[in-house]
Each structure stands twice: as structure tokens, then as C-alpha cells.
């Protein structure tokens, strides 16, 4: 095991942990959603990076190439990206509704208003 052979894993983990940290530590709901998106994109990397073969090519069959990278993670992540943006839009819609109901997108202020009520 060397640094080069596992570097992609470690960057993936850094991105996932950074996204997790933003989601837990920050109270701003838009920032939380950015963190959630970073967490989500780190998963794309987790799936795609091991599928790469050095010397391989994109999985479009042609007689000129023999080695192809693994197409299965591409399929799984392709659909996950589009589903991801649709669910992100759902989260943003909730943020807009919260802003209209409470006049704030800060978690602490919303909780304080709920305690007072």
C-alpha cells in the first residue's frame, strides 16, 4: 500500500467528512444543503474512482480498444446525480417555505422562535 494507490480514497473521505461537518456544525440551512451536496458528490467519487483502469478507456465499445473502465458504477452514479438535484430542489423548497414562515434560515433562530411560541 502506498500513498498514491489510496490517495483517491482519502480525498473522498476528506470530502465526505467535510460535508458531514458542515451539516452538523453550521446552523444556516442553505449552507447545510451545500454540505449535504458535498457529501453526496464524495459518494460519486467513491464509486467511480475504483472503476478506473489505467490504460483503459471510456466504456464505449470499439474495435480499436481492448481495455475498458468498469461501466457499472457509471450507471449507478449517473442516475444518482439527477435524483440528487431533484431532492436538493425539494430541500431548497423547504428552506424557502421556512424562510416565509419564520423570516429566517438560521436553525438557532427558528428553534428560539419555536421555544417562545
Amino acid at each position, binding site marked *: 500500500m502506498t500513498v498514491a494507490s489510496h490517495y483517491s480514497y482519502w480525498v473522498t473521505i476528506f470530502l465526505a467528512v467535510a460535508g458531514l461537518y458542515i451539516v452538523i456544525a453550521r446552523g444556516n440551512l442553505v449552507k447545510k444543503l451545500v454540505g449535504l451536496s458535498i457529501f453526496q458528490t464524495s459518494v460519486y467519487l467513491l464509486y467511480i474512482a475504483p472503476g478506473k483502469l489505467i490504460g483503459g478507456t*471510456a466504456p*464505449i465499445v470499439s474495435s480499436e480498444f481492448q481495455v475498458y473502465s468498469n461501466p457499472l458504477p457509471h450507471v449507478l452514479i*449517473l*442516475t444518482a*446525480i*439527477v435524483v440528487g*438535484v*431533484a431532492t436538493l*430542489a425539494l430541500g*431548497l*423548497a423547504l428552506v*424557502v417555505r421556512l424562510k416565509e414562515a419564520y423570516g429566517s434560515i438560521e436553525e438557532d433562530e427558528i428553534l428560539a422562535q419555536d421555544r417562545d411560541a
Partner: protein
Amino acid sequence: MKDYLVLRVIAKMMIAFMLLFALYVQFHGELGPGGGFQAGVISAAAIILYAIIYGLPAAHRVVPEWVVETMVAAGVLLFALVGVAGIVLGGNYLDYFVLDPNPVHGQERGIFWVEAGVFITVSGVMLKIFYLFAGRGRDEESES
């Protein structure tokens, strides 16, 4: 942004090519990179650019709300119907081999319609989401 001549002219030129590129990605997706998901997002992006430059009412005239809402449901329905067609023609659900006497042509036909369904739903949902977010800002402005 209707007052910026450069933006207006360039956008008008670019939108045609964006829509053409979306069609290329859709129909060339079996040979090169691309497919229904990407083409749907790109065509929605073309309309979104149009809405940003020319305003939401103009975009509503090009692609009315009811068309978009129909697209959201029609794509999934088309996908599901391709599956039902497999059953009707004597195969399993989403079985494309029976769609044509030649099994390979049946596969190609099934993939074509499935990708079309994905394209319709994805572009409809993306456009609808943009309309809703953009329309909300306009309503608040007109009231306050």
C-alpha cells in the same frame, strides 16, 4: 436583463445550439456519451437561459406551465408503458427482446423509448422546479 443588447443577441444564438446539442446528446447517446438524463438537463438549461435573459413571462409563452406539468408525468408513463408493451407482446415487464422479431432491434427500440421517457420527465421536472423558484420571487416583488 432585457436591456443588454449583447446578452440578448448572444443568448438567442446560443439557445438554438443548446437545444440542438440536447437533441444530439439524446439521439447519439447510444453511440457516444449521452442519454436521456443529460439531454433532459441540457434542454431544460436552454429554456432556463431564455427565461433568465428574456424574463419569465416570455419563457412561459414558449413552454407553458401545462406543457411542463404534462411532461413531468408523461415521461414516467411512457417508461412504464414500454414495460407493459413487453408483457403484451409475450415477454416479461421491461423485456425488450420481444418488441421486434429481431431481438437486437427490439433492444434498440426499447432503449430508444425508455431514453425518450427519461428525457421528457427529467427536462419537465428541472424546468418546473426553475419556474416555481423563479416565479416565487416575482410574486413577492409585485406585492411588496
